[in-house]
């Protein structure tokens, strides 16, 4: 057994659609250490959400199916567990929050009832204990007059407050891992910053590991220790956060960093973003999926899809080109 809290190996997930089989995740492997914060970045549709939902077995089937891979949590493969076993992991050991706080809470159920469910389910509390704890949890995420607001419905909360409720609910059973799927994308900038501060504070207090999915490399820089960059259902670069910013090694990562406005740049270059659209893969690609959009593309890129290889300690990249020299590695 490794020292990893979560160890995902060769994960592949596909969706059956009228247009063909969508290869959403194509052999993703990564690890998560205890207490670590891992950022996952990439454009829309590159498979970030599907990867994490697959690990928790939350992919709707049909149309989706995890066709290969393993996902060890403390040495147990989540993908081989019975439905009953995985239920005791969800919410209790691994919790997840979602992008849109407007739709991720049940509109016809009070906040209180939604909060006490995991407490009663996983911690065996009775209703009174759970209600008292729910009020504490709301207090913890900074909702004023918490105990009076338990009987409110989601539509009586603002977007930012709803995301706070989601966080309170996710952390209610002290999970080892919090998976946050773009939890701030739908919020305006000031609220975004508040939510990120809140999560940082709670991480320091509770010590859980975090997987933070986002489009925004700027958020990752302030939050994560390590980053995965995804493209077309592959991890194409993996690195410590500082190293990724100092030495981005995949053309796609460079593109993403380029599209990030930097305040310290004296001579502002034209904000450059990557031309073209990310692909929807109906076949397992035999070429590098980024080749059509890549400035450094070579013949080999069209013939073989590069595997992740280490370029420096703890920094791995899937690219045939050494972007520093512009030549093949």
């Amino acid at each position: 057994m490794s020292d990893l809290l979560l160890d995902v190996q060769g994960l592949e997930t596909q969706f059956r659609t009228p247009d063909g089989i969508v290869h959403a995740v194509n052999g993703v492997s990564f690890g998560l250490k205890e207490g670590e914060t891992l950022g996952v970045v990439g454009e829309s549709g590159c498979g970030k959400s599907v990867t994490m939902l697959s690990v928790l077995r939350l992919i709707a089937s049909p149309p989706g199916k995890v066709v290969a891979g393993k996902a060890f949590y403390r040495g147990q493969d989540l993908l081989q567990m019975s439905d009953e076993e995985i239920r005791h992991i969800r919410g209790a050991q691994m919790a997840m929050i979602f992008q849109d706080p407007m739709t991720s809470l049940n509109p016809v159920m009070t906040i209180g009832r939604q909060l006490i469910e995991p407490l009663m389910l996983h911690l065996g509390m009775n209703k009174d204990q759970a209600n008292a704890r729910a009020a504490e949890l709301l207090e913890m995420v900074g909702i004023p007059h918490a105990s009076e607001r338990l009987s409110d419905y989601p539509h009586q909360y603002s977007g930012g407050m709803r995301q706070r409720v989601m966080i309170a609910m996710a952390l209610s059973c002290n999970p080892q891992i919090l998976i946050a799927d773009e939890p701030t994308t739908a919020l305006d900038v000031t609220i975004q910053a508040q939510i990120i501060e809140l999560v940082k504070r709670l991480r320091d207090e509770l010590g859980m590991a975090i997987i933070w999915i986002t489009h925004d490399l700027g958020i990752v820089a302030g939050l994560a220790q390590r980053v995965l960059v995804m493209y077309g259902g592959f991890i194409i670069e993996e690195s410590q956060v500082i190293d990724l910013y100092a030495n981005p090694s995949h053309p796609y990562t460079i593109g993403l960093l380029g599209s990030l406005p930097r305040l310290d740049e004296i001579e502002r270059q034209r904000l450059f973003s990557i031309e073209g659209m990310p692909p929807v893969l109906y076949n397992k690609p035999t070429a590098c999926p980024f080749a059509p959009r890549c400035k450094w593309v070579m013949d080999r890129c069209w013939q073989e899809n590069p595997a992740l290889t280490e370029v420096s300690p703890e920094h791995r990249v899937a690219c045939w080109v050494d972007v520093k020299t512009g030549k093949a590695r």
Partner: protein
Amino acid sequence: MTTYIIRRLLLVPFLLMGVTILIFGMLQFLSPVERSALYVRDFPKNEKALDAIIKRYGLDRPMYEQYWRWLVGVVDVATGERSGGILFGDLGYSRTSSQPVIDLILSRFPNTLDLTIWAVAPVILVGIWLGVQAAVHQNGIIDQAARIFSIIGTSFPTFVFGLLMLMIFYANLGWFEPGRLADEYMRVVNSDAFRHYTSLITFDALLNGRFDIFIDALRHMFLPILTLSYISWATFLRVTRSSMLETLRMEYVTTARAKGLPERDVIFKHAQPNAMIPVVTLAGGSVVGLLGGVVITETVYNYPGIGAAAAKAATTLDVVTMLGFALFNGIILIVANLVVDILYATVDPRVRLS
């Protein structure tokens, strides 16, 4: 919730007034001779008698005066007897059934209510459950059967379906009979030994411990129930299914699963209450259709309810009776809508809290 209900109740008098004005307006198309049935039993025999009636009940007075008289009736100074006055329950005299319209309604309505309850309750209890199952097990057996049934259900008009059932089960197979009860049971029901707790024969039979009468009543009602409800089965199934399918795709359902809730709770506690919102809307819309269905069904099976009575009044051009039924229908609709609105507020907090 209480404030919502109070606000909603405050609307009711206005709706009632609207209905009465509408019906009164229609009465104005009748000749004074016909309108005299609102106040007296016998047709005026000659010009003189007619003039006397017109004078006496103010049928030549201005509209608003007539409306007022129609509402509260006219009191005979000498005897103190009131004639007419819908507020006092006098809807006029039904010449085709030779009794006051209100008596006709009150004697027929329990039968219709009995039929409607047995037609609607199973749809609500079982139909919705089936719709949920069809969505949860998409393309499973229930789903396929429901789909076929929906197509058949929505493509047959009620009267065609009713006549078809009558032909097969009554004429050819002889399984079920039209009417209300077998004669020997009718005698029991009309005897003093049989207590009328609710006036609904099926329920009274159970309360009197007469299971045989209950079964016989259901046997007579079976085809009417089927005819009246098959469209509802089809539409409720379809709407529940599609609403449930949509709800199951919602993010909060994933949230519920991500909490580790058992699938049973995810479906019945989180998804279904949300999926019920369009179903309640449908229920509100179905009431009107149901009232129309009652007229056709009762006529086809010769079932002694208000629908058959209204149809008879219509075919004999007994307009006063018909408008009496129309008024009664209006009241039922207002009550039904009130119930639906309250239900709506119960399932959706956004309605009652806004």
